[in-house]
């Protein structure tokens, strides 16, 4: 009952944040390019920072114990890497007034993906035996169909776009699609369980990343990207879903005061 009411509250808060961030970026874009840059960049730093704080709390709760302890450490690695990337992007754009794509920020954006992949793999590791070949094939088919538009665009790109820009912009949706395979399997494996809500949020976050990164790739190839672009709204929403997923996990596994666990091992 308590979990259900907390979850209903979290769902309402998530919806409010989604609407709030969407409106904030749209309004900032109407106010001009400079306002859009500042508002979008600071929103990115805030949401990525929130994700880091929540990940630290959860990693501290699991304290490297078991497979999930390692999983949440990897997730913390992703959150930190992306936070550094967002900060680097903002400094390059607002302080140095340079085009932040491609830049050092991309090293940290891409650096977050191996951690994220390790997170999902370690999380489903204890229950991997429950995964069937059919699940794996199904998830792989959906994943491949998600990355196909990006690969197609990579081969038909505007010659004005450099090879480096093409390679980096294309690698994002591909990396997202790879992470999506174990993420989707996780949703199926934990279906009807308490941790399913977390997994659903993580999976939606990855889908939003695929959409955001594909939109970013299109905008880069057509030279129409600006900070505050709809791709940014999708990517900010993705951070929100990750954050609420982690928050839900903190709530599920929060320490209970006066816990009289009669244990033979602990």
């Amino acid at each position, binding site marked *: 009952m308590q979990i259900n009411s907390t979850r209903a509250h979290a769902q309402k808060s998530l919806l409010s944040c989604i609407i709030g961030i969407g409106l904030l970026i749209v309004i900032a874009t109407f106010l001009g390019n400079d306002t859009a840059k500042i508002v979008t960049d600071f929103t990115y730093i805030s949401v990525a920072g929130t994700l880091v704080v929540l990940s630290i709390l959860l990693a501290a709760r699991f*304290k490297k*114990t078991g497979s999930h302890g390692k999983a949440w450490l990897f997730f913390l690695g992703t959150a930190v890497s992306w936070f550094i990337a967002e900060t680097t992007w903002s400094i390059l754009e607002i302080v140095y007034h340079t085009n932040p794509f491609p830049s050092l920020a991309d090293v940290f954006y891409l650096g977050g993906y191996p951690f994220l992949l390790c997170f999902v793999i370690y999380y489903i590791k204890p229950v991997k035996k429950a995964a069937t070949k059919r699940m794996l094939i199904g998830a792989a088919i959906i994943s491949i169909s998600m990355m196909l538009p990006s690969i197609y665009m990579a081969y038909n790109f505007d010659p004005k776009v450099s090879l480096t820009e093409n390679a980096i912009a294309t690698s994002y949706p591909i990396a997202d699609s790879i992470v999506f395979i174990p993420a989707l399997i996780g949703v199926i494996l934990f279906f009807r369980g308490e941790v399913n809500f977390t997994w659903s949020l993580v999976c939606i976050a990855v889908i939003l990343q695929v959409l955001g990164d594909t939109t970013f790739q299109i905008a880069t190839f057509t030279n129409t990207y600006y900070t505050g672009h709809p791709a940014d709204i999708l990517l900010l929403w993705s951070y929100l879903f990750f954050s609420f997923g982690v928050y839900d996990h903190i709530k599920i*596994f929060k320490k209970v005061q006066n816990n009289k*666990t009669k244990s*033979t091992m602990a």
Partner: protein
Amino acid sequence: MKALTSVAIEKALLDIGKPFLDKVSNKLQKKYNCYIPDCYEHPEYLDNVLRSIFGNSTGTVVESIRELLAEYLDDDGIHLLVQKIGA
């Protein structure tokens, strides 16, 4: 045998993460007013709690508990527990 069963359950849950062990213990306490060692007499309590947390993947958690108790199946209590959980 009760202690052995308890150790096996705790080991299987600790392999996933300490908070999972805490969660199962708390749920057993809240819902059935019992502790992990009591699952030896009431395996159905453990079964219900594991299902509520792990959903579709309960079977694999149960499997790891079964593997740890495989050598002691000649004990009636353990035999019943292994049969009842995840059935």
